[in-house]
């Protein structure tokens, strides 16, 4: 079926660009991806990091460190596969 190695290439692209999504993407995976995008932007954007740090009364460095830590599991651990959709 896969005459031109299309499937392989697609797999490769999916691996390279996380968050591309496919038919079996769960709600948790999608949300995790969204949250990581957001957190990464907050970490990278000086004015956003300062904004959050000022509201929380923390230093910018600690706010950044906390947000990076949250990137690990921004929406908590993945639910068991059966209920994850």
């Amino acid at each position: 079926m896969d005459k031109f190695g299309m499937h392989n290439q697609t797999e490769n692209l999916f691996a390279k660009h996380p968050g591309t999504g496919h038919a079996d993407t769960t709600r948790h995976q999608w949300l995790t991806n969204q949250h990581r995008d957001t957190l990464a932007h907050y970490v990278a954007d000086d004015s956003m990091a300062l904004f959050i740090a000022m509201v929380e009364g923390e230093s910018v460095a600690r706010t950044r460190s906390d947000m990076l830590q949250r990137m690990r599991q921004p929406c908590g651990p993945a639910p068991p596969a059966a209920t994850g959709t």
Partner: protein
Amino acid sequence: MFLYNLTLQAPGGVSTAILGHFSGEKHQELVVGRQQHLELWHADTQTGKLSIRHSQNVFCRIRSLAQFRLPGAGKDHIVVGSDSGAVAVVEYDAAAGRFATVQHHEFGRSGLRRQVPGQYVAADPKGRAVMVAAVERAKVVYVVTRDGAAGVALASPLEASRAQSACIDVVGVDVGYENPVFAALELDYDGAAGGARALVYYELDLGLNHVVRRWSVAVGGSANRLIALPGGGDGPSGVLVCSEGAIEWRHAGAPDAAPRAAIPQRADPLGRGGGTRAPLVVASAVHRMKGAFFILAQAESGDLYKITVAHAAGGVTRLGVRYFDTIAPASALRILRAGFLFAASLEGSHQLFQFENLGDDDGGDDGGDDGGDDAGDDAGDDVAGPRFRPRGLASLALVGEVEATGPVVRSRVLNLAGEDAPQVYALCGRGARSALRIVRHGLEVAELAVSELPGTPRAVWAVRRREAAAHDELIVVSFLDATLVLSAGEDVAEVADSGLLASAPTLALHRVDGGGLVQVTPRAVRHVLPDGRVSEWLPPGGREITCAAAGPRQVAVALARTGGQAVYFELHPQLGVLREHAQRLQAGAEITCLALAPVPAGRRGAPFAAVGCADQTVRVVALDAARCLEPLAVQAAPAAAHSVAFAAAPRGALVLHVGLRNGLLMRAAVDPVSGGLDATRTRFAGARPVQLCPARVAGADAVLALSSAPWLCHAHAGALRTTPLSYDPLDYAAAFSSEQCPQGLVCVAGSTLRILAIDRPDALFNQASIPLALTPRDFVLNADSRHFAVLEAEHAHYSPAQLERALPPAAAPPPPADQFGLVRSAPGRWASHVRVVDPFTGETTHLAELEDGHAAVSMAHVRFASDPAPLLVVGCAAGLALRPRRCESASIRVYRWADAGRALELVHATPVDDVPQCLAPFAGQLLVALGRTLRLYDLGIKQLLRKAQSVVARNAISVLQPHPHAPDRLFVADVHDSVSLAVFNHATRAFHVVVDDALPRMVTAMHVLEDGDTLAVGDKFGNLSVLRVPERVAHALDTDPSRLLHERPRLGGSAAHKWDCVAEYHVGDIITSLEACALSSASRPVILYATLLGSLQAAVPLASKSDADFFRALEMAIRRHWPPSASLGRDHLAFRSAFRPVRSVVDGDLCEQYFALDHDTREKISDDVDRTQQDILKKLEDIRSMFAL
């Protein structure tokens, strides 16, 4: 609407800084990244002054900087990590005075993306390779080589990515000349260790040209920073891993039991043992000396620690961390070789300290442990390191400072002081370092001396008597009918033996070459020779001299009632006396003013004179021998000239300034050969005839233009600029030099004589600041008493008053908060108060403190229909938790102004059921936003009375603004879902949303323009948008709003109609305040906005279509011809469209880059735009002067 956006003041916060030899000179320089500005700073090691040498707008966000030096090269190169999806190697071109990109390699999409490298850059200490890393996964290593022309070349990138991991920090490990190694601090998403972080070594194999992940070790879950130690022969190599409360040394091949030291912790003033938080290192600096090194690290609180490293052949044997000093928290620390510490900050001013000693090494616990037996356990949990009491500076001394406006929380443009231009009142800073700043457009003037004079002086001069004197010796003040000669020196006293005529006013005074002075009075031209003899020339027929100009070898005087005759004198080269020229100058109309051009280098006299005539013309005449008194040019002016002055301009040009009787200031370029006048510009200077006074400021020629406000015309960054001085109106000024101030000014104002100095002609804004105690949140003005009520609230910290109450009875007093910061309490606890402050004296006249745990959230000044006096309303929440936002209880407090508007007294408090996020006056009542709900209250005797309530917002209301004219309309901004227009229906007592937005905008600030249909909005991602009510809806609202109230919502929104989006622009920084205002009494209004990081920008509405077309074409042409060496690879159009496509806004900062471009590029652009270069320059200058920017 078409806007032209100009940055008036660049953002103040510095996110990153590096140290090196960037211009190839011997002294060290700093390169600083300030959002979109790459700057070169110089620290003067003699005076300790910090100065900004060059600032370049690169139109992208600078996220990280690193420097490297190619082996054998004479200067350092800069690697810039930005949001351009590319890495750029930049060098400072000292000859051209700007940064130039020498290498540029793209690797991904632009923007602040999670997996596109740019967040971190690190260079190998030997300059062989560079690593660029992203927040997640991607890391790219470039081998740096030389190309054929001995420039820098980047080899193709080598990937060192690791999926499912976030990167926290990257440094280049010093391994001498072995294969380059980069250390990265990573967080593995799938790691079994439950969020532990790992230190990973990536080795670049130069032989095989690939990168391998060589070694990794788990470090504490709170590790956040790496410090590379010197290696090779200079140190143990490896990295220090900084975690919460502890620092440990790690290196590949070193034993698992890593040497580790606890970070000493501040002794808690409340004596709490546990529960206080361990220090976290936020900045560090490593200084290499011969055979030794010195490491400083800074914790969040601002405490500096000295890290001592004992090492032997096998690696580090012992680590020690000792308290060093306390300074303001920094974002970057750098130690200069000359013994200075530079501390840059994201949230305040940037400071330079001098080392007085390197800290004491004797005795005391330094937190090190010798065995290293507990290494490897989680450092964040239970570190109770040694304690210390913070003290004043002992090892450092503050020597220099660059002021920055810091985080601007809120600002307002007001003219409380009744000056010509309004002032910006801004709430800045955070915690104990916050302040209410009063920012004025104008140069800062330092007043050195003021003395009263008998009578009202007309003019003043300062001269040297002797040729050899270094400074001015005489100050000559001319009155209506007399002249006063004073000695300038230690004590100012009248001088009798000067030879100058005291019984007549003086029209002109100058020192003559070869000694002596020339004084022109209405009745004579007097040449006072060095030996005291006086030679006089008397005008013929008893005519009076009306005006005069004098130079070192030339004098010109105009005679009254002669139809414009002027007599010209030249100093005889041999005899040393003034000789009248055979011919007279015939101007054709009565002469009102005269000026001589500056003497060019290598010439003996001024080549030109300028003559202002009563027939509203200004003429330039030649003074050189070949064509003496020949008219060269005539320029018509809108009014008669009051005074004229020449000034030298950059690139050998000459400029003629003309001050007119009607208050206009005119400027024209003078051709240095033909004397022709060209490129005339006119601007309004004030309501009085403009007096021009040549002066010298910061080593360059300048002209003071004195009208009802003083102005300085000077050259800055290659362009001529006219800037107001933040000072009283002056009558006359002259250059003055003394020992205390080599380049000052002596001025007369009213009946006083003043000595002034302008130290920083590059800073367009100056500021005064009033310190506050807690992070300010909002403020309102009591217009009657002209006092501000400032709302201050702090999360998880004690306010000074709270701390005093919480202190145990016998405890030592806590360290002062303004120097050492506030003391932390616990999350969920708040401290807040309302401060009444007089902006003129800075005095706090009243401090209304809220109960412990109450957070003040919002405030408004409301004039209730049922009460004649305006009342201050404050929204408070107790037990406010931030994420998710909720509170235990909330209330709205109503305060009445007391003591003539200088104090507050509580009237009553009304409990409400949610956080009162914003308050606004609305038709004689109070409008309160409680989450999604809008509630209307009226004033009662015991409490507020609820009148109406509606749910209007999707998530939570963030900003409220009533309509400027219509009393039943208001604009409601949601934290996430943009702005909607709500109408109050009196029949049903409910709010109906009539217009809402099709796009989400996380609104932080908004302002409704005067027409009531247009609003400017700033959002959390740094965008400026202008929205407008659709014309049909606006018409319906004005005629028959009832029809609109019941229309069915469309497109999933809450209203039937959507805003018309008029303009979009990406600013790149969160807008905290927006306002439409005129920047001077004579200019048209602009949209002025302040951003969080302290920049001040103006969006100028362009009135005519032709202007808009011109600027759009110019912007497009500059984009097209923008030299690649000036950019870091970010496409300008893409940058300004980072979130939404830019619309109807031209980037004025890009247009103004035209001034700095070379001639060929300018020519190409002017061909594209189909205008001459002169036209384009004039347009760019006109738009600034028209809006008084």
